[in-house]
């Protein structure tokens, strides 16, 4: 009886407190109006901002606007399992890396997501290559068991194709078939030398198959430097960059 009485009294004292809490100077949303502005040439540039970045721009351009080569067509990513950009990227890495280690079998130097910009048709500047490959990743050669290569092939197939060179395959129902490495049919009992980047080797972009190499070797060559060296070599030989879709990855769906 006494207990009940106490509880009632507590409740009475709580009443003004509850009112106080609910009467706090709260506001509530009654309306939202929303819009998106396009930042295009219809908007005047703020000269104060340009003044801040101009010294940086001038110094950068002095270094970055050097033309290092020429491309016959614009190299960009497409919707298919291979693209001009992915083939160029993988070919350039493989060719340059093989100058250091001739025993490399094939490469997946990056994922498609790692190719950050297209290369324009015509003059290619250093800045273009930095925008394509802004990251400071190093090339690595991994010696992989055939079963791990199989996992990597599975990754390539189920993600709809990735930048590769030295290998051809068909994607059937998200599985890799008719795999040829260096022109030879893939053999899961063999070991393979696979060129990739330290980022991808660490499981970057959710890749799999590369995490347990038998051996790991660094080449002392950054991915971006491989691309730059490749373009410069082509230029020195009087050639432009001519990449084609050669059917290294095809998709049946």
């Amino acid at each position: 009886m006494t207990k009940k009485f106490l509880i009632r009294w507590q409740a009475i004292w709580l009443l003004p407190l509850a009112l106080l809490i609910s009467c706090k100077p709260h506001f509530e949303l009654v309306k939202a109006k929303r819009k998106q502005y396009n930042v295009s040439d219809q908007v005047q540039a703020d000269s104060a901002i340009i003044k801040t970045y101009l010294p940086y721009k001038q110094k950068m351009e002095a270094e970055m606007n050097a033309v290092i080569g020429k491309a016959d067509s614009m190299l960009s990513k497409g919707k298919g399992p291979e693209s001009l950009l992915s083939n160029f990227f993988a070919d350039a890495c493989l060719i340059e890396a093989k100058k250091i280690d001739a025993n490399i079998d094939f490469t997946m130097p990056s994922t498609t997501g790692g190719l950050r910009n297209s290369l324009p048709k015509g003059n290619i500047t250093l800045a273009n290559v930095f925008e394509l490959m802004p990251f400071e990743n190093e090339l690595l050669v991994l010696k992989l068991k055939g079963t791990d290569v199989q996992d990597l092939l599975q990754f390539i197939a189920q993600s709809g194709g990735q930048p590769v060179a030295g290998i051809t395959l068909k994607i059937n129902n998200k599985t890799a078939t008719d795999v040829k490495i260096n022109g030879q049919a893939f053999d899961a009992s063999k070991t393979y030398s696979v060129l990739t980047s330290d980022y991808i080797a660490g499981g970057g972009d959710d890749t799999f198959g590369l995490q347990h190499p038998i051996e790991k070797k660094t080449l002392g060559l950054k991915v971006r430097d491989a691309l730059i060296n490749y373009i410069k070599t082509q230029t020195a030989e009087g050639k432009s960059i001519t990449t084609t879709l050669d059917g290294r990855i095809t998709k049946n769906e």
Partner: protein
Amino acid sequence: MNRRKFLTVGGLASATLMVGNPFNVFAMGEVKKLTILHTNDVHSRIEPFPMDGGKLQGLGGVARRSTLIQKIRSEEEQVLLLDAGDIFQGTPYFNLYGGALEIKLMSQMGYDAATLGNHDFDNGIEGFYKQLPNANFPILISNYDLSNTIMHKSTLPYKIFKKGGLKIGVFGIGIDLAGLVEKKNYRETVYQDPIQRANEMASRLKNDLNCDLVICLSHLGYSYRDNKVSDKVLAKQTRNIDLIIGGHTHTAMATPEDVSNLDGKITTINQVGWAGINLGRIDYYFEKKNLAKTSGKYEIDNTI
């Protein structure tokens, strides 16, 4: 009325009509207005994309964005300018200057807060730390435990902005860095469950600290085909968040998306592409709390 759209979340399409006369909300007393401006994934795009035949040629540019922001600030009293991360990486400006210019320009434009994206770790956690003296705005992140890193005193979980009598709580949520960033770059950063942390932050801001509006700056990404946590998952599985300003997936949303949250109230998601090619704007209008109206629904109009 013609271009006005009314919200339809869940089965509560007509909830807006609960207030006496929704077309004349201003008749009921003092109205406060707040303008939110936002960017995400600017990726070191200081200048517009070059005219090289690329898809985005001629678009973006910090100097133009600054003009837009200044114009809006001259027209509106209460403005918050926010960024959802990935400030760094994408042009040689970052490779040469390590992000100093990106942060300086954000300070010059008067950003109020930003969160951390995965690419903000591209020069290591030290690389981001080094640029902090250039920032006159806070870095908000509530689900990275940075206590064993050089950044242990450099971020805040949330910040409350007081704008013309309104209290706006803003907190940051980051993506799982494992698999996206090399361990040597994020070091001892510990990722914590974003849903749990977001619920804790939002409840604290709205219920304990009495914020009138709660904004989450998220770098989780808009949505994924699998069950991976995203802004859509976050919106559905939380309470007390009014707006998620998203990033990471570079999603250009035609209009913001209004999701029904755990309380059946509106949690809006917006993301404006990337590279600073767009600036997002949301104007919120508030009234003194009406005890009779607790639906959490309000009028939405995708025009300004």
